[in-house]
């Protein structure tokens, strides 16, 4: 294999609305294991950003520590990135978002990073509705340290070394729903058709958008008794609906059979089209999402797709009532009250 990514581009590669080719959204060559689910997710991110015509430098990618958190190197080379410390990406993303509300924030984390060491920060980022996409590349194990069970490993799942997980798993999707998350989705790294529109919808959502993406670890967690292996996940997938994301001002072309489709309009005018709806489920009703999730858990299914969306979501800046311009663009005149006012303040302390 080659370790150098060619920078040669065919001049007639298709371009998106702002004149960027898909290659402009790519990153360095991945150093993850061949066949790693995470690389497919990176590919879906590239595709989503290309299709949404995002200017790469207007997106900031952030991650914690672990295999998943290495991936931001492998997409969007022209975006600023921040590989933070283990489990602490949510707080860094919160600060970054507060400093500049105008960028798109894409957080990438793993199951160890989010469901164990970073659980506290994950929970509070959800609660504050930080305007960001939060992708958990969920493989149920610690890859970089050779395959220990993580907190999302299912009860009874067996690791490559044969140890059986005696603890119930933490379901980040269920947890996020309980916490009041405003956008909750789950997908599978092997299902780009579902994942790309989900990422696009998440990027357009004004608030915290969680995407829990089951992403098999080919090296440590792809054996027959794992519940996060390619085979197991494929055999147990159950989708709520297939999804189309229609950005603002684009014509909605597909016509769905009545009773089998629904659409959710977002604040910016874009629309999420859902078809082949799961029974007893309404994407804007939190209770129905919780119920549907519990039902599939009992049946042993992995429920994927958009599970819940609050179309009225308000991000942290709106909750904090900050000025519309980015705080990092405020100048000294805006920030410094000046010597005369300080004299008045001094006087109040006499």
């Amino acid at each position, binding site marked *: 294999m080659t370790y150098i990514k060619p920078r040669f581009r065919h001049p007639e590669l298709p371009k998106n609305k702002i004149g960027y080719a898909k290659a402009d959204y790519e990153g360095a060559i991945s150093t993850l294991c061949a066949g790693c689910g995470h690389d497919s997710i990176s590919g879906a991110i590239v595709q989503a950003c290309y299709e949404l015509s995002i200017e790469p430098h207007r997106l900031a990618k952030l991650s914690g520590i672990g295999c998943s958190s290495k991936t931001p190197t492998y997409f969007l080379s022209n975006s600023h990135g921040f590989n933070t410390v283990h489990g*602490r990406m949510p*707080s860094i993303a919160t*600060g970054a978002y507060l400093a500049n509300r105008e960028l798109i924030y894409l957080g990438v984390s793993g199951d160890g990073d989010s469901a164990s060491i970073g659980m506290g920060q994950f929970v509070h980022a959800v609660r504050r509705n930080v305007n960001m996409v939060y992708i958990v590349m969920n493989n149920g194990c610690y890859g970089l340290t050779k395959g220990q069970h993580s907190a999302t490993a299912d009860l009874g799942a067996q690791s490559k070394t044969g140890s059986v997980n005696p603890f119930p798993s933490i379901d980040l999707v269920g947890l996020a729903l309980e916490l009041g998350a405003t956008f909750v989705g789950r997908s599978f790294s092997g299902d780009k058709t579902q994942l790309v529109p989900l990422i696009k919808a998440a990027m357009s959502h004004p608030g915290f958008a969680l995407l829990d993406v089951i992403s098999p670890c080919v090296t440590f967690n792809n054996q027959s008794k794992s519940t996060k292996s390619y085979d197991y996940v494929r055999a147990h997938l159950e989708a709520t609906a297939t999804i189309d994301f229609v950005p603002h001002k684009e014509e909605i072309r597909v016509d769905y059979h009545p009773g089998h489709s629904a659409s959710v309009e977002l604040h910016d005018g874009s629309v999420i089209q859902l078809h082949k709806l799961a029974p007893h489920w309404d994407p804007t009703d939190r209770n129905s999402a919780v119920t549907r999730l519990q039902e599939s858990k009992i049946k042993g299914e992995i429920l994927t797709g958009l599970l819940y969306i609050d179309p009225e979501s308000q991000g942290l800046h709106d909750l904090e009532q900050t000025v519309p311009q980015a705080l990092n663009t405020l100048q*000294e005149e805006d920030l*410094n009250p000046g010597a005369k006012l300080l004299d008045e303040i001094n006087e109040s*302390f006499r």
Partner: protein
Amino acid sequence: MEQLNAVNDFVVRFANVNGTGSASANNMFAKAIFRMGIPMSPKNIFPSNIQGLPTWYEVRISEKGYLGRREGIDLMVCVNPQSMAEDVASVKPGGYFLYDNTKKLHPQFIREDIHYIGIPMTDMVMHQYSDPRQRQLFKNVVYVGALSALLDIEFEVLAGIIRDQFKKKEKLIAPNIKALELGLHFIHKHYDYPLDIRLERRDSVKDSILIDGNTACALGAIYGGATVAAWYPITPSTSVVSAFGKYVSKLRIDPETGKRKFAIVQAEDELAAMGVVIGATWNGARSFTATSGPGVSLMSEFLGLAYFAEIPAVLINVQRGGPSTGMPTRTQQPDILSSAYASHGDTKHILLFPSTPAECFELTASAFDLADRFQTPILVMSDLDLGMNEHMSPPLAWDDSRRYDRGKVLSAEELEKLERFGRYLDVDGDGICYRTIPGTHPTKGSYFTRGTSKDEYAKYTENGDAYVRNVDRLARKWETAKQAVPPPELYQSENRNAYGIIFFGTTTYAALEAMDLLREKGVELDAMRIRSFPFNETVLQFIEQHEKVFVIEQNRDAQMRSLLVNELEVAPKQLIPILNYDGKPIPADTIEQQIAKTFNSETRKDDLHKAQVPAS
């Protein structure tokens, strides 16, 4: 009985029950003295408790302007039966014990060598007020009224303070003044007044203000341009962010829309608070946190990241007694080493040591410039005494011609001209590299920020040479910082004496007074106040120019001394620790006695040594 005979030079201590509203009455007492132009210094000695435990408020009045603590109570105002035994015992012979004699004083509290002033405060307020809460509050005002007669506090000054305080609740003015009068008239009727300790108006406070260090730090952060504050509540730093919140809600609101030009995040813990700060500064805003020792321990992980990834940050460390949870409501300077070297690996941080509220303001504002200039965390090392007590301070000062120093940040135009951007490339040779803010340029200037080792172009590497180049450059940056941080303050125009003393932060008040006390005894010392770490050349010179140097600090292990020995490679024996770590602000007499003792034994040793050297 001993006579005290003191004008404008005595200590009054109030013994109250926490949560009974005594603070505002006691503050009124202190402020009245301040408004009479007499230097004074109030200290709160309070428990980690909401209601019920003993709390003390101590006011030292000093015409000479000594603002440190002084041992020995001249007048004790005791309204707390819980602590009465201790309170009676703490009064100086010839001193006064003012108490509520609604109940008769138990004979065990009677001393022959002090005066007792009984005032039936509970009885008086029972008759005057019907609301139980008012009774409790006004009882405190009654003793202030009594003190105005006993100590010659100008009544009009007290009334003026009440009028200012209740500007927006006018109907409370009259009953408060009534309570003052109750106390005043009671003394007029039953006791000789004034006492032989009393006040006389002076013009010694000039343009000083009376303010706590935490409020001054908060104002420093506002003037320094901070837009994002992130914190987790912890005594004694909490009031930094509450004061920030109070002032930004007046000073940083868009007049047309009512929208905020700031964001305050009360984080889930100190780790997250520091993370928010780093995220915001990485993204080009100015941001800070305020915490205390336990918080610094939790923030250490992120401090290491900010040091190694080179991200500006400002942390105000209002120190309290450690280790662990320690003494949460008592003062110390115990985080010198843990702040200087916070986090694993070869990590060091710039520290600033304010000693007055005016300096809290100035150094906090400057911390944002230093953080941007050096792309690293700056820790402002305050403490509980400085942060939570009011201090007489020079006014806060800002020069409108001053501009923020945002350091080496590349604009889109500058990036456009650049062939290749290297985030960790030392272009200027000073160890400080150029940084970019996310979103600046479509194709240039983006890089991957990380806490892992990297090369000059921010690319991950485990190559030993690249690693060494990077950490050696960080050391070079540290050398550059030595020239930029605030220099020490020297208290002599030239060093004349064989012995010197070093102090910093709140130890300053007591140290300067101790120097005067020692001078009276014929011991002359040169002095230096450290204002920052890394130590610059002057610090080393001062130590080298003296045979022995006393290092005064408020912790057990002489941490500043360790830092000096470690960083400057001076002989440990040259630095003699003078320590106070009982949680109360260090008093001048403690310093004076310890120095005098050591000084005597050291000079004896020297004499002995000289005697043993045969004459040539």
